[in-house]
Structure formats: C-alpha cells, structure tokens
C-alpha cells in the first residue's frame, strides 16, 4: 500500500468517522445543555428577534468604527484569508470533484492559475496573521496551543495544495498524498478545536443576535 493508497482509502475513512463522531458530539452537547430560564419579558417580537439574529451574522464581520484603526489590519488579513480559503475550496476543480463524488453537487470551476494566485494570497495572509499573533503582546497572551494548532492544520493543506498545483519538490503522487493527509488531519482536528467556528459561526452569531434582540440590545 502506497502513501496515496492509504490517504485515499483507510486514512480518509478514519478522518471521516472521527469528523462525524466529533461533530455529532459537539452538536448534541450544545443542544442538550441546560438552558437558563428566560424570566424577563422580551423587548422584541419573535420576528424582531429573528431579524436581530440574521443581522448579527453579518454585523459581527464589520468592525466598529472606534476599533477600525486598531484592528483594521487584522480584519483585512482575516478577510483575505477567509475569502481566499472559501474560493480555493469551492473554486478549485479537484475540490468540486470531491464534493460531487460525496453529495452529487457540481458547478463550474475556476481556472487553475486563478486558484493558485488566490492560494498564494491566502498563504501570505496566514503567515502575516501568525506573525501578528506572535508579535502583538495581547494577542500572544490570549493565544493558546489550540490557536497555533488550528492555524497549522489549516496552513498545511494550503501549502501542500500550492506545491501540488506546481508539482514541485516531489512527484504528483507524493504531493497529492501529502495534501490529502493534511486535509484529513484538519478534518480530525475540526470538531475538537477552535476550527469548529467554521461550522458554528453562523449558528452562534444568529443565536447571540436573537438573544440580544430579545433583551433590546443592538445587533
């Protein structure tokens, strides 16, 4: 069995099973957790609360004016990284192919050159974000091993993907195996670290906005 056989076979199966166990564990634990009783009267109608939830999904992506100067660079790098990663995953032909094989959905892919350029920008943004995290005293203080591991498990697929697209350093087979293995590491890590925000971000912001609206706070 070659490394690629392992990555495409048993490695992928293990990663998928761990991902499913982890996601179900997180979802069921969150949904079944003890809820605080709501004793106060709501300040908004149900429709208003839903609107508040929907608004916060987007509003939390835009920094408040008073913070813009201080965190503008973080927001810029983060936006480049997130948009880049989204474009790579959903614009790259091999990725669309995997999605098609898994759930049957398919769409037109971006040219390889465009994906490679966006990958390069994404990689640069990730490195800059890491440097900022290490250099900035408050960021460094707030950072835990979870932050660095999450960065690493996202960084590796991007790096191996770029190497694979150029077929440099090693042969296509080896690079493809390393790329798939790095994605599998990310899949395994996803439910157990801060990477889970990628799955929960919309639901958590929506819930928070819903509760804020209920209490009459700005969303």
């Amino acid at each position: 069995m070659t490394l690629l056989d392992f990555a495409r076979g048993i490695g992928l199966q293990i990663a998928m099973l761990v991902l499913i166990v982890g996601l179900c564990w997180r979802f069921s634990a969150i949904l079944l957790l003890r809820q605080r009783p709501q004793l106060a009267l709501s300040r908004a109608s149900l429709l208003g609360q839903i609107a508040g939830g929907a608004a916060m999904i987007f509003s939390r992506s835009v920094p408040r004016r008073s913070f813009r100067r201080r965190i503008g660079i973080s927001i810029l790098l983060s936006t480049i990284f997130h948009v880049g990663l989204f474009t790579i995953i959903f614009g790259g032909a091999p990725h669309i192919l995997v999605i098609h094989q898994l759930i049957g959905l398919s769409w037109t892919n971006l040219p390889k050159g465009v994906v490679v350029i966006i990958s390069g920008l994404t990689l640069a943004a990730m490195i800059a974000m890491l440097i900022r995290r290490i250099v900035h005293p408050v960021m460094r203080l707030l950072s835990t091993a979870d932050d660095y591991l999450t960065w690493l498990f996202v960084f590796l697929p991007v790096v191996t993907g770029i190497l694979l697209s150029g077929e440099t350093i090693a042969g296509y087979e080896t690079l493809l195996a390393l790329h798939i293995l790095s994605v599998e590491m990310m899949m395994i890590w996803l439910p157990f670290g801060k990477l889970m925000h990628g799955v929960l971000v919309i639901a958590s912001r929506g819930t928070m906005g819903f509760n804020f609206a209920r209490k009459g706070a700005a969303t």
Partner: protein
Amino acid sequence: MVESETLGETLQRRGFSRRSLLKFAIAMTSSLALPPSVAPLMAANLARARRRSVIWLSFQECTGCLETLLRSSSPTIDALIFDFISLDYQEALMAAAGTAAERTLREAVAANKGEYLLAIDGSIPTKDGGVYSLTGGRSNHDMLMEFAADAKAVLAIGTCAAYGGIPKAFPNPTGAVGVEDLVTDKPIVNIPGCPPVPEVLSGVLVHFISFGKLPDLDDRKRPLAYFGTTIHDQCYRRPFYDQGKFAKSFDDEGARQGWCLFELGCKGPITHNACASLKWNGGTSFPIESGHGCIGCSEPDFWDKGSFYTSLAGGSATGWRNAGLAAAVGIASGAAAALSSKLRAEPAKPRPENKP
C-alpha cells in the same frame, strides 16, 4: 547459440548501410535520453556487437506482452535488433516442444552461462508450493531461481513480472509476486505495462548490446529514460488541465474538444510510462489520445486502486452504515456530556423576596 557474425556484418548482408545504422543510433540515444554525441559510439559498438542469448520464460501471464512486442512495428532495423538477439527459448514462438524444447533450454544455458539475458513475463505464484503454474511439471518459482542464477541480468517484462500484476490483485489466490520479490542477487530491469511499450524493450536491449550494461534505473528498477516522467507530464491534454477544462463525460462537449480526462478517472498524474511520447502502433496514438483516461497499468497494484473511472481527487469514503454508527456514538457522547453537566450544576436558588 553463439554466432560469430557481428551486427554490422548482418546489416551489411541485409542491405543496410552504415548511415542507416547511425540514424538508428541517433534515434535510440534520443529515446534513451543520452547525449547526441554518444550516437557514433553506439553505432560503432552495435556494429561490432555479437548476438546475445536471451532466454524468455513465460509464467502466470496472458501472452499479451509477447503479442505486443512481436507486433510492435513493421520489420525495420528494430526488428533486426530482435534478430540480433538469439532468442534461444520462448515457448510460444519456438517450433520445438516437450523434451526437445527442454533440451534446447539446457543447451542454451550451458553455452551462455553467466552471459545470457533472462526475460520473464508473467507473475510467479508462490502459494501452495507454486502449483498454480507449472512448466514440464516444474513450478515457475523453481525455474526462475535456477535460470536467474546463471543469468547476466533479468528483464521483468510487463506489470505481472515486475510487480505481480493482475494475478496479484486482491485476494491474490495464487500468492503471485513479481521477479524482484524473489531474485535479489542479480541486476533486474522492470519494464512494466499491461502490456509494456515495445520500444522500451528495444531501447534496453540496444543499450545493453551497445555498452554492455543496463541503462540507468529509477527506484523501482525501471529504465529512467522511459519512466522518469508521468503520462500527465507529457500529455498533450495537459494545457487543459492547467486551464481547469475537464471533460465531464465521454461524450460531452469537453470530450469532443479534447479536454483533460482527469475528472473521468485518468491516472496519468501518478503513472510513469512512455505511452504519451512513444505512443502505440507505430506512433499512431495512445489511450488518452483515443479518448480514454490512463488506467495506470504500469504502476504496482493498479488493479486494486479503485475504479478506473474514479478521479484521483476522490477516495474511498466511509459507508453509510459506519457513518451512522459514528453519528450514534457522537450523539451518545454529547448527550452524556450534557447530562453530566446538568447533574454537576447547582440547582437554581430561589430569589430572595424584596422586603419593603
């Protein structure tokens, strides 16, 4: 059989000029990725060379490799090269049979001890004492070990001889293995492919006859000149891969436009062979040119690497049953964690009433 006539004399007798031999040498140096300056030396060495004895044993195989090599091209100087080797034993081609064939084999080995090339096509069954493939009552394993011992080098022709091939496919009922799994003390050249590209065998033989040694090999003992790059690297559809233009089915507009067959399961990116450069049937075409993706037939265990029509981007996802079990385990764990949290939490205390 040892003949005194040199190749130069043979060619002269058959009406070939020195110039044609030089042109052939230039083509072969190019094919073998040697510097052009080596061509005159190769031509001179070829002209001086004498017939090399080749003993060809067919084991657990389909004869496809031999058929391909025999029908490689019109009888040109390549054919003469094949004439120039003394194929002293090949069961499918020789007129002799039975004990006469056995006697021929023994005589050829005795006359060329330590100098003959041993060519093998087919895998070697090792299970149950190798009873699944016998020649004259002897197992392939015993024959290989006996005749490899006195050979100058061993050529494993075809994927079966090189890596076990289709007979080795899961569950490998005969315990099939390739030559290199058994012969460890002789130079081995693997020429994989199902079937192998005939010109690769020509190139290896020319190199051996010209320079008295085998060509440079890669880590899988394949001639580097022919197996150094992948089909994907040499494919004329590669620009479409880079542009992200893929055929989605074998009869769609993309397929008609000659777009990349990656999404239709082409294994070109992980397959090392010379199909895309040397092509088949006298340079007519190769499978991708005919509209079908590469199936990776020259790579080890190609038969067990999933469907020929599953893209390399995909993989063997876990089944719905296992996914359901995993989900159940996850939900149970989450529920247990939530329950534990509830039990550990202190009960809400009643708020003290405000006294006036």
